[in-house]
């Protein structure tokens, strides 16, 4: 659906602060992709860490990424999402 936000959480299975963030999202009925980086195998871990650094160069946890997907040329939605006055 255009304009729908996608939420992704980079987390560690051992980190209580990560658990708090995920509980907050669940309590507010927010669907999210949960990437527990410490539970990935080394190859996947390398890829996930590299991806995480695009958003958070320090690669700290938790990191919550909120993305909005806009398809086609929808000026109104572009203005709203990118906050163009």
């Amino acid at each position, binding site marked *: 659906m255009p304009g729908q936000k996608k939420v992704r959480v980079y987390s*560690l*299975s*051992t980190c*209580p*602060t990560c658990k708090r963030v995920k509980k907050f999202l669940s309590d507010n009925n927010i669907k999210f992709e949960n990437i527990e980086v*410490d539970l990935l195998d080394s190859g996947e871990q390398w890829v996930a*860490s590299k991806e995480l650094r695009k958003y958070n160069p*320090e690669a*700290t*946890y938790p990191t919550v990424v909120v993305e909005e997907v806009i398809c086609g040329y929808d000026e109104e939605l572009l203005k709203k999402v990118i906050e163009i006055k």
Partner: protein
Amino acid sequence: MTPEKLYEILDKYAKSRGIELNKDKDFVLDILAGLLKNEERYGYRSCPCRLATGIQWKDSDIICPCKYAEPDIKEYGSCYCGLYVSKEWNEGSIKRVVVPERRKQT
């Protein structure tokens, strides 16, 4: 060892160093469970809020208490993961902030 047992040990340790464990006991027990999980899988208590490599010499600075705990507690009243805090932090007399990562990226 159980998180509860480790709690008793670290509570004494913290007091001996003039600091305290975070007064949110459930949160602390969660951290300690993370430490014990890391000890089980890596053989050492790597910080539960940082990604370990599993190679001890590479992770030596984040073995709890991590190398950054003292300067973090001095500056922010809390260590990075929130296990060790100052008396003032527990009392709420200083502002609670997200402690930034002091560790240099490798």
